[in-house]
């Protein structure tokens, strides 16, 4: 274990204690996996590793990720595709251990604590019972995520009845109620429609209705707006925010688009190459980002008030191979500031996730003053 | 010589029969019989296997070919003619005895065999008393007359042999009972019990012809014309209960039939059941398995069944001589076979032993044929071996063949084409054996396979034969009724050369042969006639028109249950169905 990702939180709110705990454990790498004590936080992920054995080698999709999340709060996980964010969410759902027919199972380690229960080591059927009831998920493309051959209502009813011993009629009433709640017009009629008869936004609303039908305590939204029109995106995000307030669930929003999380998230976790490179409150990450990759992400955000030409060019190059992760800082081949720290350190040593400010962590070799200078002088003015 | 008109369709009957009979692989005989009280090998050849008078039970036939028709007027397949005697009677019929003895005609509906006028032109029969149809009504001479006259209605009732029609109405003047308003003059019924046939010319085989079930009585009010095949009205011991073409047939006892008035039919089983399949291997399996008693089609078993039967159940097997011959004809229109010496060269050069082996060896393939008249036909002469086929043990006589080639003016040999039907595996194998042996004497043979079903317009069309340069035609042949006439006219007589549907492939046009045949036909004494046919056969062989290959034999299954089983020469060496019973 060459490094360990620390987890902290802004010192306000009920997660502060947990953050302190973690910071403490984070100083003693290796102890985490043996610490099986249930945490106080609602959701706590400790040193999660998801490795896929393939013919070409071990794909380390997630390689030592830790974070916590409290009820009523929203965590945004941001990163490019292949950064490990979706793998993380599937790990929390316990979906890496089912349906791996004839394939080599991924190797999972670490701990995932949800409401005091550890999921990675739990009986798969126990985890299954939690799926959909305690943890629900909204997927990126509602067209492919909904079964094309069953009506929307049927799929919601099915989701409800698998966890509730009720008759079809009751479940249907519940489905209509949820469809109404997510803003589907004429829900008692549309309940019998097939997914292809819905518009993209309606489908995602239906998907959300399906996810919320069991009042889950944790909602994971994996790129919930990517497949939608820009105009619809905002509506869906508003819906998620309203629903979160109403249901009081914890929400994880996974996206490659910082703009999405900016509106919703309390905390933001930036992933790169299967690891966390920056973590902090939404304000911290947006206004004082401490990692060149985050700068790049910010630069790629669409802004209406600026000319295209003036805008910062987003991160160049492509995400790293998860089999042969670049030595040193995984971001160094793409980092415009890789040579700012003296010597070869960015290419030889993996940067630790360090608390740069209270509750704000970053994994970068650059000195604090260099980062602040570059941010203030080169990046921020262009944004 | 139109009085000599015979069948045009024997060919088809033969091809259908031979197609399945002759198979290529040699059967391994030997092995101990593993029969459970079945009998012994060849128990039904020239003797009666399991003689018994026990009545009752169901006689089960299994077949892969339905009758061409069950209408007695229209049937031509030998097994159908054999089977027809279950539900039909004739003026005279065959003696229910094994082998040669079956050929003696016995009175059936008639009180006695024919009273023949001195000039041999009038045949007179008197019917027995108490003859009845299946509905109990009396069977009269008029019914016999009507049944025979139906063969004039060829437009509707095609398919059957027309010997009687051709003999009684050689010029085809009468249009038949359906179209001609006038009665036919040459068959007379002076009263209900008497029937007379007036022949324009004498014919020594007339009574043999009459014995064919083709000439069974049919009652006019029961004549459903072309649909008669679906339910022939019975005058015999059994009647149709149900029949679905190509599927099944069930006969039950005809209560109106009088046993005492019919000594020729044993009528032992209560029911006769026929099951029709399409797969001959499956048929053999059912026979061996005991699901059926015998093969309806009587064409012999397939290779696999034959081997199993001979190895494990030899006691259930009979291997009778059939009336069929496999042969090659040399059309004289095709050079160099216009020259007798070239024909002789091919005869000498052919290795009969290898042909026999190609056909399945002595058991399945048959005996070496040394002349054109097969053993079951009266007049067969074992000593007639002009080409030394028997004396050489079937081996080719290469020296003589080369000698004949020189005489033919082709010392270095020549090339020719051998036509063979593709529908018969054994024929094709035989052709290959001939090709191999003739190559050794310098005759290069190219084999041309043709569609067997189209035979009459391919090899039966002399113009086509000449065009295609068919110097040799390989075919099979058998008698409709057991006489030299029933067998040989079609092959040998000049009047039989036709533009289409020809069977005289060799195009024999030899006055000596024509006269010999005419004399033999006019001869009323069967023994003398047989002798005369033997002489004609000798002429044919001397002319080297034909290359006889083998006299076919069949491997016949006889179930353990069967009683009174024997092969009769009257049915080309096949079982006499009407005598069979079951244990």
């Amino acid at each position, binding site marked *: 274990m060459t490094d360990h990702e620390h987890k902290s939180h802004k010192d306000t709110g009920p997660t502060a204690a947990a953050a302190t705990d973690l910071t403490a454990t984070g100083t003693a790498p290796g102890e985490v996996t043996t610490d099986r004590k249930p945490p106080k936080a609602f959701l706590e992920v400790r040193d999660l590793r998801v490795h896929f054995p393939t013919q070409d080698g071990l794909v380390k999709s997630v390689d030592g990720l830790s974070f916590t999340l409290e009820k009523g709060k929203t965590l945004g996980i941001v990163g490019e595709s292949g950064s490990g964010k979706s793998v993380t969410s*599937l790990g929390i759902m316990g*979906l890496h251990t*089912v*349906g791996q*027919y*004839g*394939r080599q199972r991924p190797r999972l380690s670490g701990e995932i604590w949800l409401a005091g229960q550890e999921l990675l080591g739990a009986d798969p059927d126990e985890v*299954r*019972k*939690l*799926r*959909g*009831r305690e943890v*629900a998920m909204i*997927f990126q*493309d509602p067209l*492919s*995520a*909904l*079964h*094309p*051959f*069953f*009506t929307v209502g049927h*799929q919601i009813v099915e*989701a409800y009845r*698998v966890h509730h011993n009720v008759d079809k009629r009751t479940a249907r009433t519940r489905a209509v109620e949820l469809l109404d709640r997510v803003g589907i017009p004429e829900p008692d009629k549309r309940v019998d429609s*097939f997914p*292809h008869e819905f518009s993209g936004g309606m489908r995602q609303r239906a998907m959300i209705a*399906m996810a919320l039908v069991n009042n889950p305590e944790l909602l994971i939204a994996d790129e919930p707006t990517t497949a939608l029109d820009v105009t619809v995106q905002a509506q869906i995000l508003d819906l998620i925010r309203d629903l979160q307030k109403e249901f009081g669930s914890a929400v994880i929003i996974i996206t490659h688009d910082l703009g999405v999380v900016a509106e919703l998230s309390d905390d933001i976790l930036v992933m790169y190459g299967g690891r966390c490179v920056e973590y902090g409150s939404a304000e911290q990450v947006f206004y004082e980002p401490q990692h060149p990759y985050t700068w790049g992400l910010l630069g790629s955000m669409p802004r209406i008030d600026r000319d295209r030409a003036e805008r910062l060019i987003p991160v160049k190059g492509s995400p790293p191979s998860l089999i042969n992760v670049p030595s040193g800082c995984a971001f160094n081949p793409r980092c415009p500031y890789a040579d700012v720290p003296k010597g070869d350190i960015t290419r030889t040593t993996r940067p630790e996730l360090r608390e740069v400010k209270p509750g704000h962590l970053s994994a970068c070799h650059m000195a604090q003053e260099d980062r602040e200078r570059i941010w203030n002088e080169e990046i921020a003015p262009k944004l | 010589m139109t009085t000599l008109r015979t069948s*045009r*369709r024997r060919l*088809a009957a033969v091809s259908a029969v031979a197609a399945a009979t002759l198979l290529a692989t040699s059967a391994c005989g030997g092995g101990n019989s593993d029969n459970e009280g079945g009998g012994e090998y060849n128990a039904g050849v020239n003797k009666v296997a399991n003689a018994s008078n026990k009545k009752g039970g169901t006689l089960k036939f299994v077949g892969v070919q*339905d009758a*061409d*028709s069950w209408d007695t007027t229209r049937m031509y397949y030998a097994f159908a003619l054999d089977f027809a005697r279950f539900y039909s009677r004739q003026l005279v019929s065959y003696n229910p005895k094994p082998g040669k003895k079956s050929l003696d005609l016995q009175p059936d509906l008639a009180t006695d065999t024919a009273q023949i006028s001195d000039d041999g032109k009038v045949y007179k029969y008197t019917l027995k008393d108490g003859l009845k149809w299946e509905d109990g009504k009396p069977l009269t001479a008029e019914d016999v007359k009507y049944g025979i006259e139906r063969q004039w*209605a*060829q*437009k*509707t009732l*095609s398919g059957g042999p027309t010997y009687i029609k051709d003999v009684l109405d050689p010029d085809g003047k009468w*249009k*038949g009972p*359906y*179209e001609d308003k006038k009665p036919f003059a040459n068959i007379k019924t002076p009263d209900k019990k008497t029937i007379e046939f007036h022949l324009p010319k004498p014919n020594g085989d007339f009574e043999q012809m009459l014995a064919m079930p083709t000439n069974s009585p049919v009652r006019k009010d029961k004549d459903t014309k*072309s649909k008669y*095949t*679906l339910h022939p009205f019975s005058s015999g011991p059994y009647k149709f209960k149900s029949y*679905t*073409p*190509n*599927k099944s047939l069930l006969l039950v006892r005809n209560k109106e039939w009088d046993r005492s008035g019919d000594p020729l039919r044993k009528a032992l089983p209560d029911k006769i059941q026929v*099951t029709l399949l*399409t797969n001959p*291997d*499956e048929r053999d*399996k*059912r026979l061996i*398995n005991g699901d059926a008693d015998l093969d309806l089609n009587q064409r012999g078993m397939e290779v696999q069944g034959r081997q199993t039967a001979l190895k494990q159940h030899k006691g259930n097997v009979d291997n009778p001589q059939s009336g069929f011959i496999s042969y090659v004809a040399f059309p004289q229109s095709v050079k160099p076979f216009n020259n007798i010496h070239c024909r002789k060269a091919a005869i000498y050069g052919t290795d009969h032993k290898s042909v026999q082996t190609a056909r399945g060896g002595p058991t399945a393939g048959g005996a070496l044929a040394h002349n054109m008249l097969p053993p079951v036909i009266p007049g067969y002469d074992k000593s007639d071996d002009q080409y030394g086929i028997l004396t050489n043990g079937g081996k080719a006589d290469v020296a003589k063949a080369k000698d004949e080639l020189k005489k033919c003016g082709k010392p270095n040999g020549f090339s020719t084409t051998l036509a063979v039907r593709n529908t018969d595996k054994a024929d094709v194998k035989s052709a290959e054996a001939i090709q191999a042996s003739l190559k050794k004497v310098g005759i290069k043979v190219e084999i041309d396979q043709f569609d067997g079903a*189209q035979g009459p317009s391919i090899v039966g069309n002399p113009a086509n034969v000449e065009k295609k340069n068919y110097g040799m035609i390989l075919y099979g042949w058998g008698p409709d009724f057991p006489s030299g006439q029933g067998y040989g006219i079609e092959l040998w007589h000049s009047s039989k050369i036709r533009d289409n549907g020809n069977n005289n492939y060799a195009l024999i046009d030899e006055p000596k042969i024509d006269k010999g045949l005419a004399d033999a036909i006019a001869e009323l004494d069967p023994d003398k006639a047989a002798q005369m046919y033997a002489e004609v056969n000798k002429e044919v062989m001397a002319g080297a028109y034909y290359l006889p290959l083998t006299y076919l034999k069949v491997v016949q299954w006889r179930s353990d249950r069967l009683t009174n089983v024997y092969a009769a020469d009257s049915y080309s060496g096949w079982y006499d169905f009407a005598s069979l019973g079951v244990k």
Partner: protein
Amino acid sequence: MLTYLIRRLFAVAVMLVVIILAVFCIFFLIPKWAGIDPATMFVGKQADKASIEGVREKLQLDEPVLVQLFEFFKGIFVGRDYTGGGTTTHCAAPCFGYSFRTEQAIWPVLTDRLPVTLSLALGAAVVWLFIGLTVGVLSALKRGSLWDRLAMTGALAGVSLPIYFTGLLALAVFAYQLDLVSNTFTPFGENPAKWFSGMILPWITLAFLFGAMYARLTRATMLEVMGEDYIRTARAKGLREPVVIGKHAMRSTMTPVLTLLGVDIGALMGSAILTETTFSIPGLGQAVLKAINDRDLPLILGVTLITATSVVIANLVVDLLYGVIDPRVRLG
């Protein structure tokens, strides 16, 4: 939906008329153009002058083509009389021709034999769908395992081995050696138990051939479907894995299987001939084989028509079923 059905039924009717025309051309006109007297083809191989003459009169072969065609169609709707040689044979409607070899109207032969072939085909279809889907799903779920490799090798064998081989082998072992099942066909009406016993081997033999293809198809489709997002959704709902596979994955897998099934109804006819011959089942296949052997053209014509009809109808049924299985398919 109703208009769609009416439109499709109309299309089917047009299709059948076209098929009848085509078949009519093949059997009546082309021989004529080729210089072959169609009458000889209808008499069978034992043609002689008088009988050919008789058939020519009865079939009105000397009449203009349009008259013949009219007579043919007329026969289908109101029946038809064949007159010639001083006799008249009536063929009641629907008259799809008359066999002068077996002296039967064709329609009753078809209606007698079609149920047998259908019972063979449908029974086999049930067996092969069951075997094919089960093996295919298991293979997909255990991809790469010994079972998967064995099953797929077996499937390859199933596709490659001819019916008369597997059929005869099955007969030899199960009917003759072990005596487990009947080796003969018994009509259902006669003895349902014996009918069943006699049909088991044909079903399985035919199903083996087709089931193999279905197993391969099911496996491939299943593997594809298992990667679909909606399967992940189903799991994310907390559904048990058997429900995920048995309901969500199977539902999608059925679509291509159904397509293939529609196509196979046509192919089935060819295989039915072999199966019926091998097992001596008196169905359409056996009838047509006999008809070909005997050159019984009217019967060949009739079987051709009924086969074409069943293919057209099977396709219609499959298309309609599509609408049921896949709601995205609009029937309109």
